[in-house]
């Protein structure tokens, strides 16, 4: 009888059932859409973080220099003396301003912490390359005025600044180039993990001290480099074995070379600027962070979620909107949907006072009547759940189809932000340039989100049924004689 009665009620009072279901459906649909949008936001954020810090990297360990130290204006060993023409070229390799190096032993120390799966060190260098020629005139000339000419043709991250020689004419350029010395033995963690080789090959562990390089594709295009070409750094020729793009957006450096080579070139034996850490599981990240902070003193430990807060732009604005407003909005709508369906269910019971009173007069136990009301509410909830999932899928699909573009920007490519360092000097133009990355927002609907929607539908049905059932339980058999309707 339970199912017959249930079926008859739902079929013959279809409209009332649909109204209750639609309320729940709206709430559930919104929750599902917001859940999938925030999952999409998370994906977008991790895309951004991965492209910046490496796919396999959970934590970075850096050391920041005391403000004002470490940076400072660079001096070039170029002297102007005498007259005539002079040609000059110089490389200067240095770490980022505000960054201090750490001993390579830090890598082993970090790796020995519990729950650390892997730790690799890298040395990020800025290479200021000066090329220029001067023509100096002795004596004075009233007709010719010397002008300095900047040579900032590099574009991208390069920057140049022309000097103004006292008199005469100068023609020189200043190239800046970022070089990442990386551990070639583990390409799954650290800067190499976010690279996608588009031509050539990646490093192998045998190349830990070879004169080979992987070049970022946009830099390669700019400098017309191909696999097999050479790049010269501080007078040493490196053979290009691979061209790579960052999985998304901009890569962390222009040229990647084996760590040992970088250390030798920069005269920084056994020094690293960043330790990239992979935790044994994502649940362990904060524990690992705590352990490193405690046991490896003087370092700055940054997790991906710390980094997320340094990401700005429309992505983070949207992510904040979704996590704060979207969550509250959908909770509010859901609560309203629960409340409305509860009120509708109990008002439906009120309209059926005589019906339920009659059943009680016929000897139906209260439990059976409550069960009937609960059953109807539960089915309404499930119908609402199905409609809600359909609405949610439609909403998510619409967002994915529309695929709005979000941009994310970070202050620096490295985890260490330090102070602004010493002012002045062409070093300002280093890789500290802000990076903007564009990602497309999708709204993936996960199975667990659907499970949540089903659970909400059941919960909504039970809450509404609870209200209605409570109302029905208070009816007396004498209500069969009540004059209602």
């Amino acid at each position, binding site marked *: *009888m339970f199912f*017959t*009665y249930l079926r*008859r*009620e739902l*079929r*013959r*009072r279809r409209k009332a059932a649909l109204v209750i279901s639609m309320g729940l459906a709206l709430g559930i649909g919104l929750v599902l859409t917001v859940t999938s949008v925030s999952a999409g936001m998370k994906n977008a954020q991790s895309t951004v973080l991965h492209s910046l810090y490496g796919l396999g990297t959970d934590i970075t360990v850096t050391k920041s220099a005391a403000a004002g130290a470490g940076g400072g204006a660079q001096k070039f060993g170029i002297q102007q003396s005498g007259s005539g023409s002079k040609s000059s070229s110089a490389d200067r390799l240095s770490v980022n301003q505000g960054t201090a190096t750490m001993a390579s032993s830090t890598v082993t120390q970090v790796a020995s912490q519990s729950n650390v799966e892997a730790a690799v060190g890298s040395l990020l260098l800025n290479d200021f390359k000066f090329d220029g020629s001067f023509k100096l005139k002795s004596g004075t000339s009233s007709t010719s005025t010397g002008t300095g000419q900047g040579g900032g043709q590099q574009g991208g991250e390069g920057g140049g600044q022309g000097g103004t020689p006292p008199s005469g004419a100068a023609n020189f350029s200043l190239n800046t180039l970022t070089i990442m010395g990386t551990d070639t033995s583990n390409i799954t963690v650290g800067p190499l993990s976010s690279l996608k080789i588009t031509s050539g090959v990646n490093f192998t562990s045998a190349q830990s001290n070879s004169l080979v390089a992987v070049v970022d594709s946009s830099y390669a295009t700019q400098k017309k480099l191909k696999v097999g070409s050479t790049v010269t750094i501080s007078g040493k020729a490196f053979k290009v074995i691979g061209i790579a793009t960052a999985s998304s957006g901009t890569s962390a450096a222009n040229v990647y070379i084996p760590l040992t080579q970088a250390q030798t070139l920069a005269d920084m034996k056994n020094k690293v600027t960043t330790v990239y850490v992979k935790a044994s599981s994502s649940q362990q990240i904060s524990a690992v962070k705590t352990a490193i902070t405690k046991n490896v003193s003087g370092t700055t430990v940054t997790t991906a979620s710390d980094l997320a807060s340094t990401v700005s732009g429309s992505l983070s604005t949207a992510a904040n909107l979704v996590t704060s407003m979207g969550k509250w909005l959908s909770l509010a709508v859901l609560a309203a949907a629960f409340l409305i369906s509860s009120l509708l269910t109990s008002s439906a019971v009120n309209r059926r006072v*005589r*019906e339920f009173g*009659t*059943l*009680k*007069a*016929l*000897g*139906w*136990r209260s439990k*059976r009547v409550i069960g009937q009301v609960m059953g109807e509410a539960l089915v309404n909830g499930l119908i609402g759940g199905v409609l809600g999932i359909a609405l949610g899928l439609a909403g998510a699909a619409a967002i994915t189809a529309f695929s709005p573009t979000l941009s994310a920007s970070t202050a620096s490519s490295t985890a260490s932000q330090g102070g602004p360092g010493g002012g002045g000097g062409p070093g300002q133009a280093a890789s500290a340039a802000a990076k903007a990355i564009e990602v497309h927002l999708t709204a993936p609907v996960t199975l667990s989100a659907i499970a949540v929607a089903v659970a909400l539908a059941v919960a909504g049905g039970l809450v509404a049924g609870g209200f209605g059932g409570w109302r029905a339980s208070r009816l*007396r*058999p*004498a209500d*069969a*004689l009540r004059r209602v309707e």
Partner: protein
Amino acid sequence: MYRLSGVTKHYSRGKETVRALDGIDLEIPDGGQLVIQGPTGGGKSTLLQMLGGLDRPTGGTVELAGHDLGAIGEAKLTKVRAELIGFVFQSFNLIPTLSAQENVETALVPMGIAKEERHKRAFAALESVGLGERSNHVPSELSGGQQQRVAIARALVKEPKVLLADEPTGNLDEETRDEIMELLHGLWRERGLTFIMVTHDTAIAGRAPRLATIRAGKVTVSENADAQVWAG
């Protein structure tokens, strides 16, 4: 056997207390018939509720087949209603979404009767009130008289000891009223049940062999041996 002694029922409305029943003593033998009449608000429906175990008296005892309906527990009272008492209401009180057949079956649900048996008995009951062909119709597809016949089938399908009817013809025209009265009397005679009916229809009251009149919560019973009882 119904035995009522000193039955009172008080309703409180705000500060006021309504004495709907004010000391009722009454005996109704098994297989007997009683028609209850009286002015509106006199307490007829209240008395019927006490007899049917739909509500409990404020004072006194209502005894049916050894049960004190005012004192037994809720579960027991529900069982008494399910097994011993059949109800017919003025406005039929059929479940609007269920067919005639299913409506009749609702009376068998609390008895835990298997589906097959329930079907068979419900259909037989509908046939006995002349509605065998209408078993699949919902109430809104039936006339008032037909709906009341379904309600009578529902009351009798479980073969109760008592049939209680509160103004069963109150919503029917005169011709239909006579049909229903004849049907009820026929069933009463045939089945040997106790039949208690409330009415404010003087034509019906005039044809009752035993008539209780309730006024302001008090009852007086009169016998009329010459009453021209209903055929059927």
